[in-house]
């Protein structure tokens, strides 16, 4: 714990300096709430407020997507990033949503947060990209069960699979929280909001929910940075990563090892690229 506190102190110091010398316009980080076991995203604009930044095991929220809300980008945005956030930032850079020079990345090696589901399969505890590093890098633990749940699901029969997912989508209330929080859902106007074109119907039934859910995982599948935010925010506790990881598993099997957002010069999204030697099953 003491180390975490040291990191927090260092974070506040660094943040104060960055704001002081005008390197960044403001800093996105985590701040306290009324509850000891919760934090909330905060935007620190002045050096004197730097002490409001928190760093503890309850800093759960992903912060990367907040940078998209700044349309004007008058000043550099300082942002606290863990491994998952750093991959999301990379992904946003690759997708032309932000420019590297518009963000100042405060890297925070993370041993995993209180949300065990979100952090359970984390393969990148250290930020893969950063401008300043708070604390020391931590040892990475290889993830062996990345696709375990997917494999189990695959073993079911067709009808069992359908029954499972129908159950899931019966519960879905299409609140779009998963989309809104997802760092790779960077569309200006989501397909799911385009009723006129006909991508998505308005009824709330499991068919329309399925259409939304499946399309969403297909859309994010080849860019997913596995931060688990979608699952974390789902008010109905739907197993959304189980759908996302299926895409990732197939991509890994069909097109080679693939983890998104590990660098700024990452591969093009799998679906925006091709290889003459791709497997051909449609002969």
């Amino acid at each position, binding site marked *: 714990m003491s180390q975490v506190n040291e990191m927090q102190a260092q974070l506040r110091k660094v943040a104060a300096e960055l704001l002081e010398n005008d390197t960044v316009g403001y800093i996105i980080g985590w701040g306290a709430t009324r509850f000891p076991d919760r934090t909330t995203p905060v935007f620190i604009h002045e050096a004197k407020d730097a002490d409001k930044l928190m760093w503890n095991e309850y800093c759960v929220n992903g912060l990367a997507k907040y940078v998209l809300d700044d349309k004007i980008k008058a000043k550099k945005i300082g942002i606290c990033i863990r491994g998952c956030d750093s991959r999301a930032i990379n992904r946003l850079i690759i997708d032309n949503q932000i420019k590297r020079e518009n963000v100042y990345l405060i890297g925070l090696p993370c041993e995993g947060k209180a949300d065990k589901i979100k952090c359970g399969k984390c393969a990148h505890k250290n930020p893969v990209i950063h401008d300043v590093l708070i604390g020391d890098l931590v040892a990475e633990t290889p993830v062996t069960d990345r696709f375990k749940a997917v494999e189990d699901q695959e073993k079911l029969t067709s009808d069992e699979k359908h029954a499972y997912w129908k159950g899931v989508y019966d519960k879905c209330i299409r609140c779009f929280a998963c989309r809104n929080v997802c760092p790779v859902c960077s569309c200006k106007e989501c397909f799911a909001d385009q009723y006129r074109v006909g991508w998505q119907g308005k009824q709330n039934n499991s068919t329309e929910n399925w259409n939304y859910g499946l399309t969403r995982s297909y859309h994010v599948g080849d860019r997913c940075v596995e931060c688990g935010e979608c699952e974390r925010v789902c008010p109905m506790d739907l197993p959304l990563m189980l759908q996302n990881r299926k895409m990732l598993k197939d991509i890994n099997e069909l097109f080679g090892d693939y983890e998104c957002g590990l660098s700024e010069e990452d591969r093009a999204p799998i*679906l925006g690229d091709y290889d003459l030697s791709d497997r051909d099953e*449609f002969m």
Partner: protein
Amino acid sequence: MSVIKEWEPKILVFTCNWCTYTGADLAGLNRMKYPENVRLVRVPCSSRVNPQFILRAFMKGCDGVLVCGCHPGDCHYVSGNYFTRRRFMLMQRLLEYNGVDPARFQARWISGSEAAKFRDTMIRVSKEIKALGPNTKFREDWYVKEAIANEPSK
């Protein structure tokens, strides 16, 4: 007035204008016969087909969907079908993972000269889907039916 007809599946076939649609036309010129339950939607290139069209088709009551294009290397637009190949390899797996029988969604390369392959494919797919029966999964009207059937008053 109406006679009870044998159930016929609805099969949607997306065909690229340059290969499969031409192959289908050739099948017509040669008076090759295949089941009436297939309907072709013409697109310029198989890569035009957005995978969401497939979901839409299943939701709206299609029993089988097929995407057809030129053989890899022969694409009229040089590389379109390579994208098709990736998109639908992944889509097919995702659908299967969600409980849709893999036979219900397929992709095939059929060139403009392969009229016989077109006919054979249509016959085979039609037969497979007929054997599977109507698609009930994630289908709008089916759920409505189901809901009505489960109403306690009934």
